[in-house]
């Protein structure tokens, strides 16, 4: 599954970061690397972007970009 499909409050472990160019680079730089655990914290008022929690901090990314992040669901 991909990160955008994860429900609020649930966690997953990244298996792959797809996409290309600047965006992908940025995601990797911010610590969204394979084997990293992420939790979906909340969704912005208009349903986009989303707020995620990883490596002890909060990051916001758009739903479209979250579709490029493959995850495996894990228990909290």
């Amino acid at each position: 599954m991909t990160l955008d499909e994860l429900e609020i409050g649930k966690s997953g472990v990244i298996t792959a970061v797809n996409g290309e160019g600047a965006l992908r680079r940025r995601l990797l730089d911010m610590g969204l690397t394979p084997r990293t655990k992420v939790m979906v914290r909340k969704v912005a008022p208009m349903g986009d972007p989303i707020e995620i929690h990883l490596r002890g901090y909060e990051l916001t990314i758009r739903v479209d970009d979250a579709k490029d992040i493959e995850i495996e669901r894990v228990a909290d």
Partner: protein
Amino acid sequence: MIFALGGNQNCGKTTLFNQLTGSNQHVGNFPGVTVEGKRGTVKGHPDVEVVDLPGIYSLSPYTSEEIVTRDFLINEKIDCIINITDATNIERNLYLSLQLMELDIPMVIALNMMDEMRENGNTIKIQKLSEALGVPVVPLAAVKNEGVDELVEIAIDTAQHRTKPAVKDFCSGAVHRAIHSVAHLVEDHADRINVPSRFAATKLIEGDEPMMNALKLSDNEKDMLEHIVTEMETETGTDREAALADMRYDFIEKVCADTVIKTGKSKAHERSVKIDSVLTHRIWSIPIFVGIMAVIFWLTFGVIGAWLSDGFTVLIDKVISLIDMGLTSYGINPVVHSLIVDGVCAGVGSVLSFLPTIVVLFFFLSMLEDSGYMARVAFVMDKTLRKIGLSGRSFVPMIIGFGCSVPAIMASRTLPSDRDRKMTIILTPFMSCSAKLPIYSVFVMAFFAPYLRPVMMIFLYIFGMVMGVLVGLVLKKTAFHGEPVPFVMELPNYRMPGFKSVVMLIWDKAKDFITKAFTIIFTASVIIWFLQTFDTRLNVVTDSSMSMLALIGQLVSPIFRPLGFTDWRAATALITGFSAKEAVISTLSVLVGGNINAMLPTIFTTKAAISFLVFTLLYTPCVAAIAAVKRELHSRSMALLVVVGQTVFAWCVAAIVYNVIMLF
């Protein structure tokens, strides 16, 4: 000795910079590039200069700030990098550190927010961390000024001994081998352009184009590079970009596992989550944002600002009447008396009385930004802004635009794409800057009943925003179509802005404003006074409508006939407004002579006043803002386009507004 202060955004870099330099700081350009950065002398060490680098997360060349930082560090003879990191968010902060270490420049890591770590019951084994990273690590609590002296000592020592980072290998295996092979392959090229071969190698493996171009590799070398990288990819099972990011984070995770002892949760983080459960709530976030902005404007213009401004105005009037009396009793020549009292005092005084309001506005804007709320606003507003082709991050420069367009235009530098940057810069002037505030309030006071005044003020601000949105929509459909850039942004923990930083920022703004009043406004007032006191034969005129200025104004004023104001004084005020928006009011004050609130209705009808306000709201930004546009866009023609485009647009809108209200 030169130190470079670098680190992520939101890790207390500005606070540390202020602690290091005290008030010995100035803004200067980075040599070679036209990006401004703060510089300052370290307190107690007059021979040590520190340069504040932009807040960045990586040295990948994807935002102009990252490129500037990288070029600066490579090209300048830096004696020591002070890399400030947030101890409470250490993993991601060290990611930049590892890249900085590859630059082979003496470096010290300042581990900030150690006070928060302690408070949470967590610690970091400093000695062990320092050994693992191969650079000195100094614990710090910048807000409390703890550890700053030690940091300076150690940085000076590191610089004097030219102690370079000792650890450069962050992994073993395929990636390690690839880096070494590439470093060896490009060594000569890297030496030629003074880049450490190790840094060049990792950047090449990541597919970094600016580095590739700078090194001027031969085709043969490019083939070999590709071969090495492909081999690494097959061996590790990942692609080149992920492999290197992965390598760095793996290394960091291992180091942190050995050195960071976490027993408690981060209180600041838990608090932020709680605050956010309200401030970024799905339903309440937007009303709360609107509410916060409304309260800020109300406090600025209604409560604090008005109260302070009134007091300040009384003070200024006292000073002016003292000068007036003094000069009269001295029996000074009436023309000189007129120059000082009717020219300089009226002009500078009319602008200076807005100092308190503007300081209050900047205070609130800096609180919004430094507390971390601005990032939330970007998060909440992203979807809305995407409709006009921008991202939530563009919202931050625009909000700053309510203070002053110049820092707002400069803040657009953090935007990751050229297209977003250009569009944000073009749209920022639609947010009424604080210099337009004197114009609005003087006119609103003169033409509207007290109960209508707040409504009119808010209307003007909103009207500007609405026009900005319209222009944005048009730009999106025409000149700037294409996809907005990725929106990947940190939501930092809420923090109380440091008292010292806020005071210094306010002091800076007040100083800027006073300087402007006594330079640009002063000069403009003297010129206006001169032109309105003499005729073309340099005789003193009895009525200013016979003066040189009237002549010039009369030439221009027909242009404004469709807008409803034909008085030459209105046209003149608009021309001087190009030097600084406050000059519109200082000019009118000089020209009408006497009480401006009482005199304005003799120049404008109420409807013409509305049209005049709409025109001033939208027409060309001031010279300083245009200079900032030119600097940031590296383009004279874009700057010229902004001047002409906005003026024409303002004229059209004001003409429409005037003719529509004439129907009622």
